[in-house]
């Protein structure tokens, strides 16, 4: 069955939850998996896109899996520090590494109904791979 691209989705993992992004490029898959991360906590349509922050700059890692791990954990760190929840992400590859931005708003208890805090992105079920059809898949389990 033809599936929409780019897209994000969740998958089951026992006590926690898997996040997955698929796109036409690695960076697009990283943007989508970040949306999946936000959707663990609240419905994306509830997030007003009012403020942009730089999540990370010049991010490098020995391989794409560890880059994915670092990207998601940078978002989790920013959520903790800023108290914001994000509904749009942009990833860009520059000479010195991956740069990423997020747009969102401060967490509003009354609107966002956030059930749990994401403690961290794990290396469980982690993949950052090019698929046979040329698209890119990024996934891992997050600890809630």
């Amino acid at each position: 069955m033809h599936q929409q691209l780019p897209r994000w989705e969740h998958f089951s993992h026992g006590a926690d939850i898997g996040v997955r992004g698929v796109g036409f490029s690695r960076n697009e898959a990283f943007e989508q998996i970040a949306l999946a991360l936000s959707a663990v906590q609240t419905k994306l349509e509830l997030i007003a896109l009012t403020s942009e922050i730089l999540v990370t700059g010049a991010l490098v890692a020995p391989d794409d899996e560890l880059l994915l791990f670092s990207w998601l954990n940078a978002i989790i760190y920013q959520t903790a520090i800023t108290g914001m929840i994000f509904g749009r992400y942009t990833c860009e590859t520059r000479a010195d590494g991956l740069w990423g931005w997020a747009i969102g708003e401060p967490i509003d208890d009354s609107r966002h109904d956030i059930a749990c805090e994401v403690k961290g992105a794990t290396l469980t079920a982690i993949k950052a791979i090019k698929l046979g059809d040329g698209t890119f898949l990024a996934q891992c389990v997050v600890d809630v």
Partner: protein
Amino acid sequence: MDLADFIKASDYEWHYGPVDHMRVPAIIFGSEALICAMDDHVLTQLKNVASLRGIVKAAYAMPDAHWGYGFPIGGVAAFDASNGGVISAGGVGFDISCGVRTLTSGLHHDEVKRLRARLADALFGAIPAGMGKRSKSRIELELAELDAMLGGGAKWAVSAGYGVADDLSRTEEFGCMAGATPEAVSQHSKERQLAEVGTLGSGNHYLEVQYVEEIYDPETAKAFDLEKDSVVVTIHCGSRGLGHQIGTEYLGQMAKEALIYGIELPDRELACVPINSPTGQKYLGVMRAAINCALANRQVLTHLVRQVFAGFFPRAKLNLLYDVSHNTCKVETHIVNGRAKELHVHRKGATRAFGPGHAVLPMELKTTGQPVLIGGSMGTSSYVLAGSNASEQAALSSSCHGAGRSMSRHHATTLWSGRAIIKDLANQGIEVRSHSYRGIAEEAPGAYKDVSDVVNSAAAAGLSRKVAKLSPMICVKG
């Protein structure tokens, strides 16, 4: 899980291997029904852990074991540093020293029952929980004071006015994990903690007011100051953002370094390094700081609870029964091949369960063994157990920690609504307070396994002894 390849050591103890790369056997505790219901990933992860360098005796899984990160949740494994043994950030987890403490009150169920709703409102107002503005700490610490907290743990909290000296002997490590290195904790980790000291967090964290529904061991219950229908307060939370950040940083670091030490990882999440490596030693120090963070956190929450109770019951005294941690790596002495050996014991979603007479227990607990506190789900029973000497031989003095989920969070929200659960539990005499209806749905009682089965298996396997059953009256959800 298929038990066909297991050797049945008893009705509640099952051995597998060693086969293939395993250096020691895997041992799973539980009834046949519990183990058959376990995810196959539990055995896969146990086999992987059993293949790690320096592992001693066995890779253990408690009756509540389920699919975790590298290590199964409910996993126990000990390593010999002198034999190239490793330390794994995944074997401790993100919520370092997540744990439970229970306070006795001397109050009777009937006294609290009639004030239940108002008490629930007061606790909900006083305890920072969930996410967003209302989750933030009532305490503002400067970085220097944060370092003192990371070095001192519950001891720091008591000296800062958030408790009494008697609390410390009723906390593992007497309230302060030695060997912590606050100076090595990253700036990011400290930044995440500044607004989170004395906060409950979210997800499956909670604060419950409970009453003793049933006593199984009258003598030990009396020593623990538990009587039928007496009221206790239980707090479940951990090291908050600081622990999560440390877990993240070292999981990544160990994943990068494992190959340098020739450690082939069957599962990247099992990332580990030799205990005696620079990163291994650094992780030990900051992990211990995170343990202190969790101990301080639960101590501050205790202070807040005492303040609320004082407003309702001025003559009541909330005494700490015990504080246990679930996600740690600690240096402990255990008997291996007839000789005392210092080992680094990882317990990931498992509780230490030192039996009667153990050297590290305070005098008042030497006769009984340490309390082992097992949380149920919201709306169901919790249990107080006691450590047993049989557990030392069986599983390095370890026991279970809770029920474990039976379904995903998403699935739970398709079956239940938060509002309906709150109403249903109120009809059963349980007041629930939370900032998130979705959180309530995700934590629905039906989303968890039956903790009674887990506890009965732990007792039957000799891991710990049943003392009392607790039933909830008030639940403040994180």
